[in-house]
């Protein structure tokens, strides 16, 4: 994957992520959750009010037991933990601190309230116990004192009744003046025990202690109820409600903002998409246009390549024809010479034959002896001259020479056929060395008097290939090698064959020429690249060679050094993995030889 692609994916992912975040933000406010919190808070407030009522009912004696005062504890705990769960999501968000703070201060005050209510219950129980006992205790004490005759009933009973009366009134209206009166009467009672029997003294002490308990517990109860009264549980719940509502409002505002952002973002995305689409359409058009022009260029190029290949073919053919013409010309001239000589000899032989015929005719006619003699002398002289000049021997020798010349020409033709292998199948078993030999013969004219050929042929197996194509490569390389050798130097062309591993054959074609300059080297296999003058080379030779070796699943390499020479190394598989006629498509476009 290219860097641009990765960047593109990252950008797309980011855009989508932003979209998801914005959508999530617009859904962040759970109205139902908020309603549940509000309901819990309402329940808490309701419970708090009910609890206050229950405490007052206990205080005023309307409630006979404290179950109703104790029950809210569990309900408070469960409401608090429910609220904690419901608000857990709020804390940590914006405005969550205020909620946490309000919850904390509610907890503090409710804890104080729980403690106060507990103390109230304890206090109230004691108060009620003592107040309940006071009348009985007073009655028992009064009865006892009266019975014991310590004091007359009308003296002690009103005092005790007054104490009970005032103590119970103190519970209803704890006024300081009443308290002082009670304390005064208690002091009066306290002076009695000295004159009382032990049992009555204990009763008096108990009675006094219950009166004191009533006073003490009533005061303590007032303090506790005063505390309870000012404990701002309801206010704290309101503060908590406000904090939660405030946060809810903020969340709603944030949601609204997020919605606006989402709309803006969506519009921006749509615009971006539209822009991208228009760009895409434009570039698609551009692409189509350039594709069309490229196709045209490609067609033109193909056409010109066909032309170039054809031209290469013709140029190679021209070279070859020149070489072959020369090769054939030499024996031909020789044969012509001998034939001309023989033609000259024919006149002597014609005269001899004519004289022989005349002599024979004279003999048959029984002509004059003088005529016969004259003719005989003439014939004898002619025969003698023919024999003496060894005309027939000469002609025989000349015919033999002609025959040799003709044989040479014939050989050239055979090689030509071998080279092109027109008589064979496209793919066949081929001895590379044979191919090199034929190629050398065809290039003989180019190499003659200039290049010495060194052959270092190892024994190699036949390979399966298209012989005409491989020969074309050889001819191309050998021709190039010959042309690379400067005229002022004795050229050496070394041809080597060897095995490369078990299933490959290596051919090396080495010259001691000028070498290939470094700036040229990378381009030598490019089509149409040539160092020759315009019109002299097509620049297709090496490119075609490269293609041929490639289609044979082979390899062609070049190693060169300036002023030392160049070696082309070809490796070919004994059996190419795919011998496909289609793979050799180039064949049709190949020149017969270069």
């Amino acid at each position, binding site marked *: 994957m290219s860097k641009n692609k990765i960047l593109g994916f990252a950008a797309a992912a980011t855009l989508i992520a932003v979209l998801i975040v914005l959508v999530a933000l617009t859904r962040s406010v759970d109205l139902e959750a908020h309603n549940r919190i509000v309901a819990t808070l309402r329940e808490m407030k309701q419970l708090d009010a009910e609890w206050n009522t229950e405490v007052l009912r206990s205080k005023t004696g*309307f409630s006979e037991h404290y179950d109703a005062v104790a029950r809210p504890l569990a309900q408070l705990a469960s409401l608090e933990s429910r609220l904690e769960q419901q608000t857990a999501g709020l804390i940590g968000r914006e405005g969550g601190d205020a909620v946490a703070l309000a919850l904390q201060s509610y907890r503090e005050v409710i804890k104080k309230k729980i403690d106060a209510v507990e103390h109230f219950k*304890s206090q109230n129980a004691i108060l009620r116990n003592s107040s*309940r006992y006071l*009348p009985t205790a007073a009655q028992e004490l009064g009865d006892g004192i009266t019975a014991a005759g310590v004091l007359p009933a009308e003296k002690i009973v009103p005092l005790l*009744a007054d104490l009970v009366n005032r103590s119970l009134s103190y519970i209803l209206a704890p006024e300081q003046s009443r308290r002082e009166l009670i304390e005064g009467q208690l002091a009066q009672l306290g002076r009695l025990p000295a004159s009382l029997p032990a049992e009555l003294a204990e009763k008096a002490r108990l009675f006094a202690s219950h009166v004191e308990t009533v006073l003490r517990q009533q005061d303590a109860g007032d303090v506790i109820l005063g505390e309870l009264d000012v404990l701002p549980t309801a206010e704290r719940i309101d503060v908590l409600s406000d904090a939660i509502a405030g946060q809810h409002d903020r969340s709603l505002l944030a949601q609204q903002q997020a919605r606006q952002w989402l709309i803006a973002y969506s519009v921006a995305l749509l615009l971006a998409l539209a822009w991208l689409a228009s760009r895409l359409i434009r570039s698609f058009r551009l692409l189509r246009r350039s594709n069309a022009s490229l196709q045209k260029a490609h067609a033109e190029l193909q056409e010109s390549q066909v032309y170039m290949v054809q031209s290469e073919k013709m140029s190679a053919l021209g070279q070859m024809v020149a070489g072959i013409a020369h090769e054939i010309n030499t024996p031909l001239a020789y044969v012509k010479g001998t034939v001309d000589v023989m033609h000259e000899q024919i006149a002597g032989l014609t005269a001899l034959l004519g004289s022989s015929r005349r002599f024979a005719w004279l003999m048959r006619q029984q002509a004059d002896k003088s005529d016969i003699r004259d003719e005989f002398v003439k014939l004898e002289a002619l025969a003698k001259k023919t024999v003496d000049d060894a005309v027939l021997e000469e002609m025989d020798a000349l015919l033999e020479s002609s025959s040799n010349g003709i044989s040479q020409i014939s050989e050239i033709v055979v090689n030509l056929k071998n080279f092109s292998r027109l008589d064979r199948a496209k793919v066949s078993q081929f001895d590379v060395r044979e191919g090199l030999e034929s190629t050398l013969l065809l290039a003989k004219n180019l190499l003659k008097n200039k290049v010495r050929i060194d052959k270092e042929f190892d024994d190699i197996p036949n390979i399966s290939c298209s012989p005409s194509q491989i020969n074309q490569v050889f001819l191309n390389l050998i021709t190039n090698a010959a042309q690379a050798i400067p005229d002022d130097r004795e050229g050496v062309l070394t041809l080597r064959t060897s095995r490369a591993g078990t299933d490959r054959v290596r051919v090396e074609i080495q010259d001691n020429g000028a070498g290939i300059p470094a700036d040229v080297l990378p381009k030598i296999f490019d089509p149409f690249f040539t160092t020759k003058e315009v019109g002299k080379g097509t620049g297709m030779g090496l490119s075609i060679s490269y293609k041929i070796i490639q289609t044979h699943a082979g390899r062609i390499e070049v190693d060169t050094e300036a002023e030392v020479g160049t070696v082309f190394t070809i490796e070919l598989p004994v059996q190419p993995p795919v011998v496909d006629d289609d793979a050799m498509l180039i064949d049709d476009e190949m020149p017969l030889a270069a």
Partner: protein
Amino acid sequence: MHAMLKRRGGPAGLFLSLAVWAGGNAALAAEPIEPLPLRVELDAAKVALGNKLFHDKRLSRDGTIACASCHRLDSGGVDNAPVSTGIDGAKGGINAPTVFNAGYNFRQFWDGRASSLEEQAAGPIHNPIEMGSDWQQVLAKLRQDPALVAQAAAAYPAGLSDETIVDAIATFERSLVTPSAFDRYLRGDNSAIGLDEARGYQLFKNYGCVACHQGVNIGGNMFQVFGVMGDYFAKRGGPTKADLGRYNVTGLEADKHVFKVPSLRNVALTAPYFHDGSANTLEDAVDVMFRYQLGRSAPAEDKSLIVKFLRTLTGDKQARSLVATR
């Protein structure tokens, strides 16, 4: 109340009008004690699991103590010892309260430090002189019991965990409800208890016991100072940390010697009495209460009637299951 005052004769009329605040509301208000509910709705699978765990000694470090070791279901939900014996024979610091009807207590433990049975259940498991274990140990042991693990998974989606263990035990404990003859009496069956017992109940109210022992659990819904009208601890001697009661939880001076008022249900079965297990008999306990809480004396006959009443609070069948499958 009125009848009693009249019976005693004398200048009762003098106090009659004044007694309206102290006791007169009895006519207007309901009884200070309410009967146990007739039905308790709980999840039977959780109750069964809790029952098993309640008796499971693997909850203790050395596998010798279960919840039921101290809260014996066959003897009033207590062990009848002044203090309980934990692992390695360690003696606890306080008398074990009964597990029966504990679900109706407003808080758990004598000092009320646990606000729920669930909170309470974890306490003894971690107490070094009770079960001396921890959840990691307990869970490691229990998870080797495939049957228990399967039972827990059937009762709870979460399966076996510290939370489900305490929930199951607490649920089981809520099923330990013990309706008694007195509950039937409260529901209007006047023959459910004898005349003496009924008189005992009247005395229980009149003497002011009911000021603290009231509500459905006859106690268990408030705290009270032990020694309202006299210094119990000075008299007894040998102060312990446990004697400080709720002070150990709140640190408030006012909470010194303050304890949860215990439920009187099944009280006849749960001797010895008080947080220190100092009273061996109900009579002793009633005497102490009169002396230090009510600050008054009473004829022995009245006390024995009150004790008779207290015996009607014993459940008909121990730990009768009132559980209706929900």
